[in-house]
Structure formats: C-alpha cells, structure tokens
C-alpha cells in the first residue's frame, strides 16, 4: 500500500517507536513567541539544561506588541515584561530573536514561510495552535503546549501519538469574490468545530492547487478550528517558485537537490486515509460566521439556521442575532484585516485593489495590520498604504493585533467587528466583543458600506 504525504514526513522523523502507538518524533524547526515560552525557559533553568539545538529555534514577539509607535517602549507593564523576558531568555540561551523593531519581526506564522525557514518535508512546532499554517508548504506543522516547548528545547523531540489521517479534496472552480478564506470557513461549517479532532488533514484537489501560496496558508491556518492537529498541502512548482531565493532557503544546486526530494513527498496514488472527504468549490459562496465558534458559519445568502440547542441559543444571544435572519445588511462598527490567517501581502493587495477610489463608511473603524515588517515594507513599496489612507483605513505596524485581545487593539463590548482572523469565540477580540469572521474582500466591502455586504454585488467585471 502506498503512503500519504503525512506518513512519509512522519516516518522520516521517527527517532524511536515506543509501543506501536507512540513515536518519539524529531523536530526540525521550533518557533517560539513571548506568551508560551517563558515557563519553558524557567523549567530548563530549574533543571540546569541548555537548548539542544538553538540553531533550529527562532523567536519573535507578536502577541503582545502594539501596532502603532513600535519605536516606543510597550506601555502596558505586563506586556512589556513578557516581551523583555523573551529577549533575556533568547540572549541567555543563544536563540535568534526577531524582536520588536527588528526588520524580520512579525507574526510567527507569517515570518516562517516568508523567510524560507519553513520548508517542505520538515516537522515544525510552536507553542501556538495556528502553527498548522506552515503545512501549506508540505510539512507537518502543529501547535504544542508549553510543557512540550520545554521538551523540544531540551531534546529537540516530542513523544506523540500518531494521529489519524483525513484527506479533504476540493475540486471545481471558485466563483468570483470567493477566496481561500471562504473555502476553509465552508469546510469548517460542514465538519463543525470539533469535526476533525484526532486527525491530521491533507488538502488536495484542483481548487487547492489553483490557490496561491498565501491562499494555501490561509486554508491550513484554520485546520485547528475544526479540531485537526494540522493541515498540509503537497508541494508543487508554485511552492518552489515561492521558496526560491528566500533568505533561509538553500541556493542553486542545493535547491535543486531539495526539490528532487520534495517531489517525492506527495501522497502515493494508492495511499489510504482514515477519512476521505470531497467538496465542490463552485458552490462555495462568500462565508460569514454568526455564532461564537468558527464552525458556526453560513454562506452570505443564507439565513442563520434554527436550533433548539442551549449552546446555539447562548451563542446567538451573545452575538445579538436571531435564528432565521440574514446577516446581510447588519450594521457593524469595526473592520480588522490582519492576523496569521489573512495579513500577507496578497491579502493586502486584494483589499487595496478593491478599496482603491472608495471611501469607508463614516464612523467605521478600519484597521489593516500587516503580518510582518517585510509585508509592511512591501506594501509601502507598492504604494498600498496610500490607497488605504485615502480610503480611510488605518495601516498599522505588524503584530497579532485585534485577533486576540492581548495587546492594545481591542473591540469594545457589544460592538461588531468583521474580522479576517480565525476565532469568533466570546471575548476573543476584547471582553464582550462580537466577531464575524470573513475574507479580506468581505471585510473590505463591509468597511465601505458600514454593514455586512455580499461583496459579489459590489464587484465590477474587471475587478479581482
């Protein structure tokens, strides 16, 4: 029987098989950030240990950082302390840090791929559930807890139970105005927020192949939102074109050798998955969420479903919506375009091309937060910041920003935010904040009209 891509990458990293169920897996790349690493560093110190492979470890500060005036000290003392602790720990343990102010700083899941630190065939971990993003390049990438961060620090290994495998194939052509974000919100709405628990997903099919690398990252990013440990996409010429000449990618002959190896990683024709699921891309509409988990999503033309379930009622009460009503036309107050899901240069270009010559609705607050210094710089080079500025959007500095209510960027209680981030949990964007997840294009459309809008109705034929 053939092997899946997951099997091939996993098997190449087994240091020792424990009992048929558990393997000791070697980790090629370990990303860390300020929130989930300090306790792991303390534990290392307590045990008198060093980091086994500092050169496989890369740090950045992203969750706590302000997205304006980054040249000033962080105002909030606890955030400042947490970021300072990361800086001290990295210096003490010899870890390369792309900290605040560094030209490579950014959201950990944006900088890894864009610097070429995340490559096909690798095993990649980070104390962050959205580590699944890196799987878009054809590797096994997943989030871990802080105890596991400590394990990787100390031994570069983890003891892992082999997950079940699921293949999600999406064939067909996407409609205009429908993007990678809508694909993944559609899949999660179908499978529910816990529907892929225990599985590692491979995304396949024509609709996935036709996505850009940035789009593929958006899809893989949200794998965790249906409970999957991670998601991966087979590397192809698009992957290689994306990686070639990136800073940390091998050059010339070494690159060609790497490509030869990477080409062997694709799932064999006769490989078996524990679950095989199919979707038709052509029926996917722009998606919006109406509830308080990412599985509570609907196509923009559909009404909110009805359900007598307590969880469902609690969720709608929180959001201030009623079963049976449509979201189209609902007033919103905030737009957040950013996060590890949708803050890459392509996302910014799409938004810029849509809002060019338009102006945001009067009192809408619209934030655009680039995923990294590199994205910010590239956007400025292309003049996107001027387009955002004339449209009344605030173009800020890189960080996790309003995705998680941990830094200064928060949505006030009771107000609605159309957000390109990944979680609409209660309070995720600030206490009492109400989050509607959507694509960058849908968020941009809502910023212009001041209400939830079907972006397809605003698109000219020549646009996007």
């Amino acid at each position, binding site marked *: 029987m053939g092997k899946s891509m997951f099997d091939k990458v996993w098997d190449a990293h087994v240091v020792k098989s424990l009992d048929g*169920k558990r393997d*000791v897996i070697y980790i090629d790349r370990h990303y860390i950030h300020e929130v989930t690493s300090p306790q792991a560093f*303390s534990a290392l110190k307590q045990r008198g240990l060093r980091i086994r492979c500092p050169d496989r470890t890369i740090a950045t500060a992203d969750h706590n950082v302000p997205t304006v005036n980054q040249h000033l000290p962080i105002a909030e003392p606890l955030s400042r302390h947490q970021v300072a602790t990361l800086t001290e720990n990295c210096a003490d343990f010899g870890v390369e840090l792309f900290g605040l102010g560094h030209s490579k700083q950014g959201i950990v899941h944006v900088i890894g791929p864009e610097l070429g630190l995340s490559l096909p065939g690798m095993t990649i971990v980070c104390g962050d559930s959205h580590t699944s993003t890196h799987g878009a390049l054809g590797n096994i990438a997943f989030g871990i807890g802080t105890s596991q961060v400590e394990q990787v620090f100390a031994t570069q290994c983890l003891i892992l139970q082999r997950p079940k495998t699921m293949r999600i194939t999406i064939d067909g052509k996407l409609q205009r105005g429908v993007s990678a974000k809508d694909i993944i919100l559609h899949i999660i709405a179908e499978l529910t927020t816990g529907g892929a628990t225990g599985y590692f997903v491979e995304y396949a099919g024509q609709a996935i192949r036709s996505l850009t690398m940035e789009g593929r990252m958006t899809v893989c990013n949200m794998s965790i939102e249906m409970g999957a440990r991670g998601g991966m996409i087979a590397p192809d010429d698009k992957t290689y074109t994306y990686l070639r000449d990136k800073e940390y990618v091998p050059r010339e002959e070494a690159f060609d050798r790497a490509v030869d*190896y990477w080409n062997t990683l694709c799932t064999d024709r006769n490989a078996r998955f524990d679950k095989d699921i199919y979707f038709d891309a052509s029926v996917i509409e722009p998606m919006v969420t109406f509830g308080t988990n990412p599985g509570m999503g609907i196509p923009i033309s559909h009404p909110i479903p009805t359900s007598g379930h307590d969880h469902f009622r609690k969720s709608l009460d929180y959001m201030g919506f009623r079963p049976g009503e449509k979201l189209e036309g609902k007033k919103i107050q905030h737009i957040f375009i950013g996060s590890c899901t949708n803050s890459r240069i392509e996302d910014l270009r799409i938004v810029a091309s849509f809002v060019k010559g338009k102006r945001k609705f009067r009192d809408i607050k619209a934030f655009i937060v680039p995923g990294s210094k590199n994205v910010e710089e590239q956007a400025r080079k292309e003049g996107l910041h001027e387009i955002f500025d004339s449209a009344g959007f605030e173009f800020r500095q890189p960080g996790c920003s309003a995705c998680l209510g941990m830094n200064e960027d928060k949505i006030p209680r009771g107000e609605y935010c159309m957000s390109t981030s990944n979680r609409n*949990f209660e309070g995720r964007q600030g206490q009492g904040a109400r989050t509607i997840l959507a694509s960058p294009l849908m968020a941009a459309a809502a910023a212009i009209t001041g209400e939830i809008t079907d972006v397809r109705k605003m698109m000219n034929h020549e646009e996007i």
Partner: protein
Amino acid sequence: MKKFDILTSTAVPIPIEHVDTDQIIPARYLKNVSREGFGKYLFYDWRYDQNDEPVRDFVLNNAIYRGEILIAGKNFGCGSSREHAAWALADYGFRVVVSSYFADIFRGNALNNGILPVQVSEQDLQVLFSYIEQVPSTRLTVDLPDQQIKVEGTSWIRDFEIDLYKKQCLLNGYDDVDFLLSLDNEITSFEENHSLF
C-alpha cells in the same frame, strides 16, 4: 508533576459544548511568566461581570457545586494551545475533567499537568450531568489504576481509556522530559543520519 491514582469527589457541571480555551482563561490573563496563580482567572468572563462582580448563576459561584472534578460538554478545551488553561484548572483545584471528547492539544496539556481527562460517551455524559444536577452532593470516584469512573452509592460504573505510557506518567508523577532525556544516544544517532534533502 503531581501524581494521580484514585480520587473521590463531588463534581462541578458545565453542560456547555465546545468550551474553548479563551473561555477557560481569557488572553489578557496570559501575561504572567510563571506557572502559578492562574486559578483566579479560570472562566473569568463567565465568572465575573464587567465590574468584576461574581455572576450569580455561573456554576463556580454557586456554593452547592464544589469538587475536584469538572464535567463539561463535548470538545472541551478547543481553540488555542495555551497551557495556561490547564494551569488555571489545576491551580483552581480540578484534578479531573470529564467530557465526551477533548481537543487534542488540551488533552496533552492536561496530562502534562497532572489533570486526568476522562472521556465517556455522549450518553454517559448526559447521565452524569443529570446525577449531579439532581443531587449536587453526588460523589464520583475516578480510579486511574483500574481505569474506571463510578457514581458512588449507585451501580453506575464505566471504563475509560488512557494511553498506557501516560497512565504510568500520571501514576508516578513522571513527565516527558525525563523520559526524552534518557534517549540522548538515540537522538544523537538520529541527528547524525538526518538530512532533509
């Protein structure tokens, strides 16, 4: 890590599905750099209102429900990988969480912090909720060596599964780092032969 073998306790029911780690501990409380003291932030935004006053009908504020066992709806611990969720539960005093299934990362984090996740069927979960809701003083026994959960004073008893390695870790208070460090030679020889291309 704290050892676990047999626990008999009353239980606290949270019959809500998909309790995510942002509810277990909101992001704004993740700023401490030590593992201690997170219990006071457990379920903060369900436990306290916007003026930091206790929300009266939330179960942790209801004196009739007490205990070291938390029983919650399916997919407990979904969302973020924050181990702070497990630290908050442990610091508050929970040693066991019962649900019909757990999010993967949370399950691992719980086990790494001496909290036992007990998975039961959806039907059994509902039975447990009704026992506790009808008689809040109902005591449950969670027996790790025998892998059983029972309702004291009744014949209700169920087996639960746990990975044998993790069971040994919990029974003995070992953690994965101890074990991995003992594999130093194997890891070194793997590294000598490991190349990505």
